[in-house]
């Protein structure tokens, strides 16, 4: 009986794990960006978060930083849910 219960619980855990993974894989870049935006914007030195293309024309999450300081750069992940994160120094954004 115990073994059966353990087997069921393992199956459930595995299924849940796959489901989460599949859900993450299926998320659009817009969804992933929206999900992580607040934490990215809270990093000191980050001024913007948007969606752009990299040199190969693939969609990337673009994080704009005031300047490329080590502390800021080390706090920004390289990718989010499989989407590359590209850091671009854009300076201070002021009204024009």
């Amino acid at each position, binding site marked *: 009986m115990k073994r059966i219960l353990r087997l069921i619980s393992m199956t459930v855990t595995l299924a849940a794990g796959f489901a989460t993974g599949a859900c993450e894989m299926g998320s659009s870049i817009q969804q992933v960006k929206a999900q992580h935006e607040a934490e990215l914007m809270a990093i000191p030195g980050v001024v913007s978060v*948007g*969606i752009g293309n990299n040199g190969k024309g693939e969609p990337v999450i*673009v994080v*704009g930083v005031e300047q490329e300081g080590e502390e800021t750069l080390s706090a920004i992940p390289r990718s989010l849910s499989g989407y590359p994160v590209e850091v671009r120094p854009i*300076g201070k*954004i*002021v*009204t*024009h």
Partner: protein
Amino acid sequence: MTHTLENARAVAHANRSVLLNKANVVATGVGYKVRRGEKSDTLCVVCSVERKLSPSELRDEERIPPEVDGLPTDVVETGPIRALQSTTGRFRPAPGGVSVGHRDITAGTLGCVVFRDGQPYILSNNHVLANSNAANIGDPILQPGPYDGGRLPDDRIAVLSDFVPIEFEGAPSGCGVAGNVVGVLNKLAEWAGSDTRLQAVSVQARENRVDAAIARPLEDGDVSKEILHIGPVKGMGQGELGMAVKKCGRTTGFTQGEIQQIDVSVKVQYGGGRVALFVDQLMAGAMSRGGDSGSAVLDDSDRLVGLLFAGSDSSTVINRIENVFSALNLSL
């Protein structure tokens, strides 16, 4: 016969008025003759025409002779020549792309003419027409803006009609519950003998989508539906990644760029330590500087896609025009 430059200039000068009197000729000067696209070393009188016509389309007296006083002529097509109009001058009617501003600001850009309930309005930014929330409805709008010499009452072109308030980060909260909680905490702090007092501030940044305002012209005829150096707006478009865009602004005039990012959330500095968070913005490369705020941003087909309002040395931040039009209930 070869001419010295001095001699050629004398001949050109002597024949200038005869040549300029011919229909179609807009300029004369001395230059080197161009043969089959190649510059030669033969001096000539260059006659610039609006449009090149075949000799059969012209009466004899309108034709430019092959040479004058032994000096060859050359005909080049330049189109009509207009004075390069400064964006900082006074214009009536005023087109988009020129200096404008609330009486208490420096200067920004008149975006374009828009309509609400069938009436024409000037579209620009809140921080240009409404002094970043500080203005009152009915305040005078000057063209050119005060920094460019616009003065009351002569240069008043419109009155402020409406604006979308900008929500700044860390501004005192309008939330009653937060205020009450802070009040209670401060009472407790007082009772505990603490000198520290709390102030209710919005911790959660409030989101802005547009920095926009409209002003009603004093006379409908004082504004033009054209945009300087661009022409009339030909409908509405939607900003997309990789789209080529252009604008005419008070400071940098006509410039072009490309939308490099969409769905942008960005912190914008408003001076005096005020910061506002904007979401759903378009970001282009460098195509703007201070004073260009309020410029209408158009695509390759002259469709309106955005309202420029901020940037850095390397980037330009643009409100989506669909957000501007829905926030202020506008149409073209």
